[in-house]
């Protein structure tokens, strides 16, 4: 197993009255693609800025390769940042922007020249040396910002919502670019975003954050298939989150009907949240399902149909390639391993908040 490269220990940060991070703990291993994912205001950018050295935590320590770097200024840290709006220096051309860090370190002109060429090749912008940064498109500026950071050979690259300002197609292309870059460079990426699709596509590890707390840490598959609480379930993809009662191991009561499941250890007759992904619901003939419902709405989404099914006063969202017309009676069936059981949130902090999108 890899060592801890960065370790955030008991970090707290306040701006005036509002608490941004509270007793925050997180470690990041070498050569990992970690994504901090959460709605705006969840503290993900502050976390990144604390790692980058642009903010000092009120309490807690930042460890880098087992050394305390909490009060080390940004210029002495072995990591580089790709800023949200790129922050390319407007009075310099592309080559001077990329050379900035190397000139500070006093590298030879030949070395700098080679590095610029190598970095531009890496981000597919060969021959852009003499362009001014304001003559570049958003996607090109983005790549130059990455090139400017990586020529310094940082151990860690911090990326603060770098794709936020790009249009959808470009964003998707850049996601693959970033994965390729990370594999070629073999360094750690810490990536901040509010876009769950970006997080699921690129990350080795996703850290879901809300209101300054970590909600769940895991691989994209873990996070998607086994959300640990309603917030994560709701934030990552579409899902049906239903209050239920765990009757006993492997049997849960949902809306008065009994569903088989695979979860154990919740106790008997315990209130729980049940998460069922829309694509995991099978619509069958009324009498073959566990419960019955009526289709109230159908939208064609390209790959699948999105249907709303009203059943026992709960509106189920179902994704299916088969279409059931509005007003048709259907049965709802869910395979036991597609049912995810979660504890009800115990404290105020864990409770899901409105997602502002």
């Amino acid at each position, binding site marked *: 197993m890899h060592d801890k490269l960065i370790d955030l220990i008991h970090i707290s940060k306040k*701006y005036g009255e509002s608490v*941004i991070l509270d007793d925050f703990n997180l470690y990041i291993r070498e050569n990992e693609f970690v994504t901090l994912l959460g709605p705006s205001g969840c503290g993900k950018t*502050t976390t990144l800025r604390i790692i980058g050295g642009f903010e000092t935590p009120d309490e807690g320590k930042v460890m880098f390769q087992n050394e305390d770097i909490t009060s080390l200024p940004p210029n002495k840290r072995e990591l580089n940042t790709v800023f949200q709006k790129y922050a390319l220096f407007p009075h310099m051309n592309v080559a001077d922007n990329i050379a900035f860090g190397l000139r500070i370190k006093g590298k030879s002109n030949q070395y700098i020249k080679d590095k610029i060429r190598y970095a531009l090749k890496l981000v597919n912008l060969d021959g852009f040396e003499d362009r001014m940064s304001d003559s570049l498109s958003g996607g090109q500026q983005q790549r130059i910002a990455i090139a400017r950071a990586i020529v310094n050979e940082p151990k860690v690259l911090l990326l603060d919502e770098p794709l936020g300002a790009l249009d959808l197609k470009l964003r998707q292309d850049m996601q693959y670019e970033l994965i390729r870059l990370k594999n070629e460079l073999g360094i750690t990426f810490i990536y901040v975003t509010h876009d769950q699709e970006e997080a699921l596509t690129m990350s080795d590890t996703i850290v879901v954050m809300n209101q300054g707390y970590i909600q769940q840490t895991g691989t994209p598959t873990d996070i998607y298939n086994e959300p640990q609480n309603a917030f994560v379930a709701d934030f990552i993809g579409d899902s049906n989150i239903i209050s239920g009662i765990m009757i006993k191991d492997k049997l849960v009561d949902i809306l008065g009907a009994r569903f088989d499941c695979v979860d154990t250890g919740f106790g008997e007759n315990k209130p729980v949240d049940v998460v069922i992904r829309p694509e995991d619901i099978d619509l069958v003939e009324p009498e073959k399902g566990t419960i019955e419902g009526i289709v109230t709405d159908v939208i064609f989404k390209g790959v699948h149909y999105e249907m709303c099914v009203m059943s026992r006063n709960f509106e189920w969202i179902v994704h299916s390639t088969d279409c059931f017309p509005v007003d048709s009676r259907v049965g709802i069936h869910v395979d036991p391993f597609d049912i995810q059981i979660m504890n009800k949130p115990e404290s105020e902090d864990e409770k899901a908040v409105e997602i502002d999108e």
Partner: protein
Amino acid sequence: MKKYKGIKYFYSILILVFLYAPIVTLMVLSFNQSKSRSHWGGFTFEWYTTLLESSALMNAFKNTMIIALLSAFIATIFGTLACLGMNFMRKRSRAMIMGMTNIPMLNADIVTGISLMLLFIACRATMGGATVLLAHITFNIPYVILSVMPRFRQINRSIYEAALDLGATPVYAFRKVVFPDILPGIISGFTMAVTMSLDDFIITHFTKGPGFDTLSTKIYSEVKKGIKPEIYALSTIMFTVVLLLLVLVNAKPWASRHKNGGVRR
């Protein structure tokens, strides 16, 4: 970057002292019983009362205010209209007008004053209040244009077009949609014009005739003979009024900003 806080404070205060020392001196002199500028003869309000009786001074004050307000008002109208027109011009003609606007801004006051004086002489105009007013309007228009023009640039053209699309006439759309957006620029242009006009000496010096005085020219003519303490009193009043106005204008937004301050990301 919260380092060296003490040095920063010290430096700021040092410069404040440098900037305000003469002003405080003038204010103190306005209460000085002795007519001498360097001896303190005891506290008095005498100069404030004799000020009102000095018709020459009150006349100069009246002239200054009329010239300042009237020239700023006329300049604001000309300047704002010019900005409106320039917006619909091609780039080259607009650049030409802006070039002309920059001449009085970049040129030395003394040259502007002399050139206007020579113009008035050539036109055989009698120098007096009217020529001073014309001169002040001339150097005030550029200040209005330079503060209104950026406002026009910021306006989103589609907002105006949206108003037309929703059935507004061009005049109505201008009044309801464009005008509120440029109003801050107009106000700051007017304020700047008043300020520049109030403080101007050089251009007034060359374009005024004998017998017409503003405060600045009055003060200049008294430099050699010795300044009358009444002038200190009048300037103290004017400065205090401006100070109070500024506090009133700025106190409100400042207070509300502080109420919900402290939260930023």
